[in-house]
C-alpha cells in the first residue's frame, strides 16, 4: 500500500512536470501560448499551491495572502534597484522577507480561528495595501508603483527615480537605458522567463507534495479535521499552524517576487483584498486540498482574465459569420454579455456553476470523468464514487 502511494506520487509529479514544461505546446490550440500568460499561470500556480498548504490542509481561510505577494514584489524591486538585476538575490530576499511578515501576521492572527482569523488576516493585508498606496510612498512609489530605472548620476535624485545596483556596478556592467532582469545573463522576459517560473513551479509542487505526504502534513490535516482532539492527543497545534502559515506566506512571497522578476514593476494594488480573494477562488475552483487543483484554477482564471476579456464584438462577429446576418447580430449581442467587457459575468457564472455542480472543484469533475471511464472498462466491482454518508 505504501509503495502504491509512493508510485502514484511519482507518476503525479512526473506527469505534472511534463505538462508544465510542455504548456507552450499544449495551450497553442486555445491561443494561450504566449510568454506573459504562461508566466502568469506558473506564478499564480505557485501562489495557489502555497495557499492550499494553509487553506487546503489546515482549513484556515486567509484573506490576506496578497500582502505577501506585495512584500515579495517590493523586496525584489529594491534588490534590482540597489544590488543587481540578477533575480537570484532578489528571490532569496523576497522569500525571506515574506516569511518574516508571514510569521508576524500569522503569530497574531492565529490566536483566533474560523472567520475571526479570516478577518484578522484581511485587516492586516488591507492595512499593508492602504499604507503602501499612500503613506509609504517613499518606499513603494504609491499608485505609480516601483520600477527599475537607469543608474543614478545625480546624487540628489530620489532612489525611486534612479538606481544604484552596487553589485552590477562593481562588476562593471555597462547599462544602456533601463536594463532588463536576468538569471545569470538569461533574460527573464519571454519564454526563458516562463521556463524559469515553470522550473520553480515544479520545485514548489514537489515540496508541497512532500509536505502533504509527510508527518507534518498529516498533522495539518488532523488540525483541519479536529483541532481540539489533536490538542488532547498531545500536539501543540499553534507551531504547526504558524509553520503552515509561514510556508504558504513564503510561497506567496516567491510568487510576488517572480511577478516582479518577469515584469519589473511593483504596485500596491497587488495587495488589495480582491487579490487575496482571487487566490481563494483559484483554490476552490480547482479543488481545495488537492495538489493539482489550485494550479488548474489559477490557469483558468488567468486565461479568462487575459483571453476572454479580449474577445470584442469584432471577433464575435467573425466567429458567428457563418450565420445569417440577423442571427449573427443577435448572437453577437448575446455573446458580448459574456466576453470582452462582460468577461466578469463569465467568471461569476463559472464560480456558481462549478460550486453548485462540482463541490470539489475541477478536480472532482476530472475524478468523475475518470470514474466513468473506469466503469466503462469494466472495473465497476467497487462503488468507488459512492457518496460519503453525511453525519
Amino acid at each position, binding site marked *: 500500500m505504501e509503495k502504491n502511494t509512493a508510485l502514484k506520487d511519482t507518476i503525479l509529479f512526473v506527469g505534472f512536470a511534463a505538462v508544465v514544461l510542455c504548456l507552450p505546446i499544449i495551450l497553442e490550440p486555445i491561443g494561450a501560448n504566449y510568454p506573459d500568460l504562461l508566466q502568469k499561470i506558473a506564478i499564480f500556480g505557485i501562489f495557489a499551491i502555497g495557499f492550499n498548504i494553509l487553506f487546503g490542509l489546515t482549513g484556515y481561510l486567509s484573506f490576506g495572502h496578497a500582502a505577501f505577494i506585495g512584500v515579495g514584489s517590493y523586496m525584489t524591486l529594491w534588490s534590482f534597484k540597489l544590488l543587481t538585476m540578477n533575480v537570484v538575490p532578489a528571490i532569496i530576499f523576497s522569500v525571506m522577507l515574506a516569511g518574516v511578515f508571514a510569521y508576524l501576521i500569522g503569530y*497574531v492572527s492565529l490566536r*483566533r480561528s474560523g472567520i*475571526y482569523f479570516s478577518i484578522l488576516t484581511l*485587516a492586516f493585508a488591507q*492595512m499593508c495595501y*492602504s499604507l503602501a498606496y499612500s*503613506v509609504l510612498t517613499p518606499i513603494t512609489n504609491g499608485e505609480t508603483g516601483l520600477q527599475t530605472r537607469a543608474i543614478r548620476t545625480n546624487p540628489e535624485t530620489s532612489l525611486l527615480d534612479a538606481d544604484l545596483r552596487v553589485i552590477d556596478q562593481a562588476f562593471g556592467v555597462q547599462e544602456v537605458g533601463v536594463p532588463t532582469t536576468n538569471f545569470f545573463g538569461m533574460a527573464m522576459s519571454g519564454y526563458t522567463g516562463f521556463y524559469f517560473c515553470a522550473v520553480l513551479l515544479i520545485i514548489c509542487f514537489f515540496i508541497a507534495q512532500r509536505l502533504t505526504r509527510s508527518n507534518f502534513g498529516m498533522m495539518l490535516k488532523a488540525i483541519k479535521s479536529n483541532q481540539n482532539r489533536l490538542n488532547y492527543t498531545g500536539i501543540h497545534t499553534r507551531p504547526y499552524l504558524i509553520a503552515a502559515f509561514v510556508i504558504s506566506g513564503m510561497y506567496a512571497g516567491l510568487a510576488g517576487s517572480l511577478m516582479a522578476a518577469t515584469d519589473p514593476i511593483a504596485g500596491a494594488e497587488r495587495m488589495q483584498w480582491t487579490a487575496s480573494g482571487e487566490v481563494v477562488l483559484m483554490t*476552490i475552483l480547482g479543488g481545495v486540498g488537492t495538489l493539482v487543483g489550485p494550479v488548474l484554477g489559477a490557469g483558468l482564471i488567468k486565461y479568462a482574465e487575459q483571453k476572454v476579456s479580449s474577445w470584442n464584438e469584432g471577433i464575435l462577429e467573425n466567429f458567428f459569420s457563418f450565420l445569417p446576418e440577423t442571427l449573427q447580430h443577435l448572437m453577437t449581442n448575446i455573446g458580448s454579455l459574456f466576453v470582452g467587457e462582460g468577461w466578469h459575468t463569465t467568471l461569476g457564472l463559472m464560480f456558481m456553476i*462549478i*460550486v453548485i455542480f462540482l463541490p470539489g472543484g475541477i478536480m472532482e469533475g476530472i475524478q468523475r470523468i475518470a470514474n466513468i471511464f473506469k466503469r466503462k472498462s469494466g472495473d465497476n466491482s467497487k462503488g468507488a464514487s459512492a457518496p460519503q454518508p453525511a453525519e
Partner: protein
Amino acid sequence: MDAIFLQVLNGLDKGGAYALIALGLTLVFGTLGVVNFAHGALFMLGAFCAVALERMLSVSYERINPDKQDFLGNPLKEQISYLVDWLGADTAAFLQDYSVPLSILFAAIFMAIVGIVMERGLIKHFYKRPHADQILVTFGLAIVVQELVRHYFGANPIPQAAPDIVSGAANVGAWVGLGDNVIYPWWRLVYFLFSAAIIFGVFAFLQFTTFGMVVRAGMQDRETVGLLGINIEQKFTVVFGLAAVVAGVAGAMYTPVLPPDYHMGMDFLVLSFVVVVVGGMGSLGGAVLAGFLLGILQSFASMQAVQELIPGISQIIIYLVAVIVLLTLPRGLMGRKGVMED
C-alpha cells in the same frame, strides 16, 4: 468643539449605513449559517431601485421641436414625459421630486422578491456546505448581478436628488447652541433617523413576535429549533427576505448621499464583514454597536489633527480597530461562543 460635534454627526450617519448593511448580514449568519458575499450586491440593487424608479417616473416619448437644435445641428427631439401628459406637470414634478422616498416602497417589494427567489433558488442548497463553498457561490452571484446592473445602467455613478424640501443644510448649530458654522445636510439627518427607525423595527419584530422568537431561538441553537418540529425552512426564507429588504431600503435611501454605481456593493462588502465580525458573528446588537462605533471612529480618524499625529490613520482605522477588538475580545464585542469558529 464644532468640529467634534460635526464629526459625531458624520459618524452616526455613516454608522447608520454600516449598521443597516451589517444587520442583514449578521442575521443571515446567525440563523441560516450562511456567509453571504452577495449581501453588498443586495445593497447595490436597492440603490438601483431608486435609480430605476426615477427612470420609470420619467419615461418619455420624443417630439421633434423644429425651433431648437441638438448637438449635431439636427432638429431637437424633445423628451416629453408620459407622467406629465397623464397627471399634469405639477403632480408629475411632485412625484419625481419624491422619487427617492417613494423608492423605499418599490425597493422593499422588489428586494423581498429578490431575497426569496435567491434563498429558494440558491442559498437553501448551501446551508450544509462549507463556508468556502458559500463564499464562492455568493461571490459569483454578486459578480453576475453587478455586471447585469452595469450592462443596463453603465459604470458611472448616477446621482439621485433628495426631495427639495430636505435638499439643503440644516442649521444644527442654532438648535444646540453652537455657532453658525455648524450646519448639516437635511437628508443626512433624515437618513440617520431612518436607519434608527429600521433598526428599531427589526429589533421589535424579533423581540415581540412569535416569528421573531423562533428566529432568535434559532440563532441561539439551530439544531434544537429544528428538533422542535417548527417549519424552520419557511422561516429561513422569510429571514433571508428580511435581510435583503433591509439592505435594499438602506441602499435606496443612501443614494442622495452617495451616487450609486454598479460597484458600490463590492466597496461595502469588506467593510460590512468587518463590522459584523467586530460586533460578533450572529449578534444583532453587536452589529449595530460596531456599525456606529466604526462610523464614529472613522470620522474622528479623518480629522486633520489626528492625521498629522498618525499619518495614514484614516486609511486603516477600521482594520486597526478590527484587529484590536478581535485580539482583546475573542468573539467581537457581543459575540457568543461557538458561532462560525470552525
